[in-house]
């Protein structure tokens, strides 16, 4: 598009809010009861986190990688691409995140639950629980249909937030390479919702930025502690 930089976000939005949320409705309807399997995977992430240890970290990374890969294909490529010309790029980004999770999380064991601070630990757990249990309720609480609920493992926003929560668990030595795509997605999703005038547009961006700040704060504290010991 010529002079694309002169367009506002709302000028670039190419679908209506009704069409966007109807996408989730049809997705949920067509894949029911996969949402239950996704919930089981989310609970498994929680259970593995409680168990702790390197093997649990690798298992968590594998679960998340599968979720990111599925959303790349099942949501972005199969569904979102029908109304958004950029969705192919989103699918590619989600595949990259899945590969990074396999590389850094499964193969190199960088998601071992070792939070740097108690605050990080609480925030990580809070973000994970928020993504699993609260995020799907936001739409219905705002008057949208239950059938349009966005659930972890199937919808991009709660999956990105849950991933950031997991990254905070492993905040002792943050796997920074796993942050950019979930954070960027949350910002992009927030911008899309803002352009659609959805009242919940700030939820995902604020949660993502909070996770980023806490991860950075934990890393700084750890670095200072390391220097004082040294």
């Amino acid at each position, binding site marked *: 598009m010529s002079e694309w930089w002169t367009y506002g976000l709302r000028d670039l939005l190419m679908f209506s809010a009704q*069409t966007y949320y109807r996408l989730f409705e049809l997705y949920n309807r067509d894949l029911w009861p996969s949402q239950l399997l996704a919930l089981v995977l989310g609970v498994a992430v929680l259970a593995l986190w409680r168990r702790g240890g390197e093997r649990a970290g690798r298992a968590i990374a594998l679960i998340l990688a599968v979720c990111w890969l599925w959303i790349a294909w099942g949501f972005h490529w199969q569904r979102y691409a029908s*109304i958004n010309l950029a969705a192919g790029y989103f699918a590619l980004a989600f595949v990259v995140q899945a590969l990074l999770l396999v590389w850094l999380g499964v193969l190199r064991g960088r998601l071992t639950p070792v939070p740097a601070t108690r605050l990080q630990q609480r925030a990580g757990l809070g973000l994970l629980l928020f993504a699993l249990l609260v995020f799907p309720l936001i739409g219905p609480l705002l008057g949208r249909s239950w059938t349009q609920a966005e659930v972890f493992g199937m919808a991009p926003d709660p999956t990105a937030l849950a991933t950031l929560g997991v990254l905070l668990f492993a905040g002792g030595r943050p796997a920074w390479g796993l942050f950019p795509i979930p954070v960027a997605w949350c910002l992009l999703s927030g911008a899309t919702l803002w352009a659609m005038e959805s009242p919940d547009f700030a939820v995902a961006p604020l949660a993502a930025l909070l996770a980023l700040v806490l991860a950075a704060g934990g890393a700084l504290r750890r670095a200072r502690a390391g220097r004082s010991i040294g």
Partner: protein
Amino acid sequence: MANIPDLTRRRLLGTIAAAPLLGSAMGWAQQVRPATRAIPSSGEAVPLIGLGSWITFNVGHDRVARDARAEVMRAFFQAGGRLIDSSPMYGSAQEVIGYGLKKIGRPADLFAADKVWISDGEAGRAQMEASRRLWGIPRFDLMQVHNLLAWQAHLPTLFAMKAAGQLRYVGITTSHGRRHGDMAQIMAGQPIDFVQLTYNLVDREVEQRLLPLARERGIAVIVNRPFQQGSLIRRLERHSLPPWATEIDCSSWAQFALKFIISHPAVTCAIPATTRVDHVRENMGAATGRQPDQAMRARMAAFVARL
């Protein structure tokens, strides 16, 4: 007030002839036909109201929404509409238009307007062919260079297609008031039939240069964003229509906004987009009845500016 004739003799006779067969079944025999305006380069008359598809027709694979858009198209054609406009930039809109045309039957007098939107001039023909297949039509009536993207590369192709009978008209588009300088340059230097631009009660920059130039050069004008993507109407609907709106047969703000646009002598057609059958009928109603004259247009713009 300028009173544009609602019924051409040909359309009136056609309507009367068809009424016994179609009227009761389709429910539109009694409807007043929309006023038309001639395309300067050919003299062909097109209704003053068309149908846009940006956002509204991008519904993806949603069968229910596709059927709803087909009903919008049916209502549009029943009310005398002809010109539908789309673009490869509009997601699934072309495909949804094609679905609608297949479902309700393609009217013989459909005026299919689309755009070429690709930076590689060599790929223009392939994109237009893909668009044609999505619409499911033998050829486009009008092909426009979308937002002037690679217009130097595309215009020679479009002129060649027109000469070969693969198109009937060639145009260029812009929106949101962008690149008016380039547009004026192309209008002055290229033998185009149409321009598409943004014009409404509050975005009136084109009145200064582009609309007079279109009249001078004999170029038809399609107006996009007549409601500023709905925001203008939402703003206006917080207020009551002025009582004098009845003098130009306006029953809604949408008609008020559209009559302002189509009463400009340089404008050939406005293309509001909608998802609702009642709205498409309301929009088409703007091309019937009395139209504002110059004094009334000034009054309308001043009234809206004060709100």
